[in-house]
């Protein structure tokens, strides 16, 4: 069992309306010291050990499915032998 944590975020120039709405909601609620909010996705993927090349598999999965490479970038961490 390997646990992989994947973080998907919008690329810099891409509008994220959702993060904007959350940011202004926080400011309206009185948290005026919050100057930026970014919102992305966070995956925890459990891969069975028989996998040969986990890096290339995860990259493939991210490019194909987890991230929309038109607009999003991703990074990941491999937590060997961990338990979700």
């Amino acid at each position, binding site marked *: 069992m390997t646990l992989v944590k994947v973080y998907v975020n919008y690329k810099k120039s891409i509008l994220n*309306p959702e993060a904007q709405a959350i940011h202004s909601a926080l400011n309206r609620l009185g948290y005026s010291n919050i100057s930026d909010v970014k919102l992305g996705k966070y995956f925890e993927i459990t891969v069975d050990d028989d996998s040969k090349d986990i890096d290339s598999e995860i990259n493939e999965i991210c490019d194909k499915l987890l991230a929309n490479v038109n607009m999003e970038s991703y990074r990941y961490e491999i937590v060997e032998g961990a338990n979700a």
Partner: protein
Amino acid sequence: MSNQQQATPEQIRDQKVYRGMGLTDYEYGLIKDNVLHRLPNYTEIGLYSGMWSEHCSYKNSKPVLKKFYTKGKRVVKGPGEGAGIIDIGDGQGVVFKAESHNHPSAVEPFQGATTGVGGILRDIFSMGARPIASLDSLRFGNVKNDADKYFISQIVAGISSYGNCIGVPTVGGDTAFDDAYQNNPLVNVMCVGLMNIDNMEVGAAAGAGNAIIYVGADTGRDGINGASFASAEFDSEHESQRSAVQVGDPFNEKLVMEGCLDVIDNHKDALVGIQDMGAAGLVSSSAEMGSKAGGNGMKLNLDLVPQREKGMSAFELMLSESQERMLLCVKAGKEDEVLKVFADHGVNAVVIGRVTDGSDYVLEHHGKVVANVPVDSLSADAPVYHRESKEPARIDQESPEQFDPEVSVPTETLRKMLSQPTIASKENIFKTYDTQVQTNTVVGPGSDAAVVRILHKNKAIAITTDVNGRYLYLNPRVGGQMAVAEAGRNVVASGAFPLGITDCLNFGNPEKPDQFYELDQAVMGMSEACEKLESPVISGNVSLNNEFDDVAIYPSPMVGMVGLIDDLKKVTTQDLKQANDLVYVLGKTGDDFNGSEIQRMQTGKVSGQLFNFDLDYEVKIQKLVQKAINDGLLNSAHDVSEGGLIVSIAESTFGNQLGVNLVSDLTAKQFFAETQSRFVVSVSEENREQFETLVGGDASLLGRVTNDNHLFVQTADSYFDMAVDEAYQTWKGALPCVLK
């Protein structure tokens, strides 16, 4: 482009930098020698690249668009503004227009589709109308591979997410599948608005000293120079264009819409003009408003433009296609009144410039003048090209002989036909659209035209989108006529008479004579049908260069028609209503198979010369149906289109799960012919005589509706025999099955 160091005027000339922005040497020469009489700088050349793109200037299509039939006594506003307007009585007008988002959707299908919906909505409410309905016309590859499925699921999800959120019902549309669209899906969205004609707004900025107000989302680096991008051809290497992705924010658009409608309804005196920021963003909206007003210039201070990102250049600010933005011209002294309205709606609005005397379009950025060009040169005086037109060799060489389908077991052919993606139920798609919000949807997706009631009035409008690119591929002129005729049949079958049409002209590269021929001929054909059906063109949109690796899509001029139902009693659907009603087919059936669904199903393509079409007969049949509905004689009406008569009959049985028992002297093959000008109607016994007297020899009695849940048709040579439920499940389950 945005990261590139800005080239100097000399470098632009010497290194031909303008080519990368979509301008030709000839066009650069015009700007330099005929307009400015000096070397344009980087910002200025950017302005022209956006404004002189096909998307903004219609430079290749203008001469063709002049051929459209646009007159009619109800037309309040024809083509030229954000959208056209037609008078429907009681001081009210319907406003409608369609927009294509093919190129953005090919690159980023979800966001391409959302921003398509967002853009057409802005066109409608900028006229002073509240959007009351949307429709989507989609063309995909034939669901053969994952790429097709990806396009379908993402594009449909995009339309659903935007339309549902903003609260405009998506009441209809049309979807067809063909390999011709595999790498170049078509995403056309039509929107209809309702307004008090007194509230009509125009996109003009007149009166020196008046304020230019920027409304809505901040400007970011999204979709920089998307207009010239949208007008460029694609090839397998289009990945590099991905910087053009824009993201739709329907929530913000809803606020912007409510704010704009509030200003239009309640602060009319303050408002001079209003326009959406669509293709080529700020430059296009401001230059068009300036040019339209005539006799004035404009000066904008780009430092005042709300910005999402740091360090944006003048070029980027002017050409960004960030969504959910509008531009208003407001009377001097009334700025605060208008700004307050937007603030109340939670919408950002700022004064960014003024209308000026003279005719210069001047931009300041960081205290310097970064562009100074004649305002008309950007918009009204953009170049126009008269392209060469040549009949494609394929049309001439095609055999006039009609395809001879193989129909040895008719029931089996029917079963197969019902499961073709183009014929199958589209419920899987439209179930993801909110079809009812605003609670005026009398007939949603699933019948011929959608019917939307006018609140508090005993009337409704019928709306449909149609085109069959296969017919146009075989004969663009006649296919163009058929597209309008089919839209007419759908509207008429629903109990309406046509008011007018909008269109999206989806074609290939106009610089190739054979593709220009398709455009030119199609428009002429459409126009001929519009005139005959008294249904003028009041708005539209052009999407050219729909090619992938040099192969063009089928010529596909989407027709969006709106009709008026002047009494809610006349609303008619395609569903058979009760057992014992008589079933007729109106119109004549021939051996018309070239371009048909059965030809494609059995050979994998369409070929041969398109079958004949008689516009006058079409008009006659449509008038008969109108009269029959007016006289209260029809219990159901359904036009015959793709798949032929047997498909229409089957579809008529589905809604109320009624059977039919029919006898015909047509052959089983002929039941798949796609002869135009036909309807399947049902009539109750008591109206039989009156109906038969009305239609004379133009209708044939086929038999009766039954409640044994069985579809049985005796043909001259064989028979169709299928449980309605089974036919229904085949038809309904086909699309979900192939999309899995």
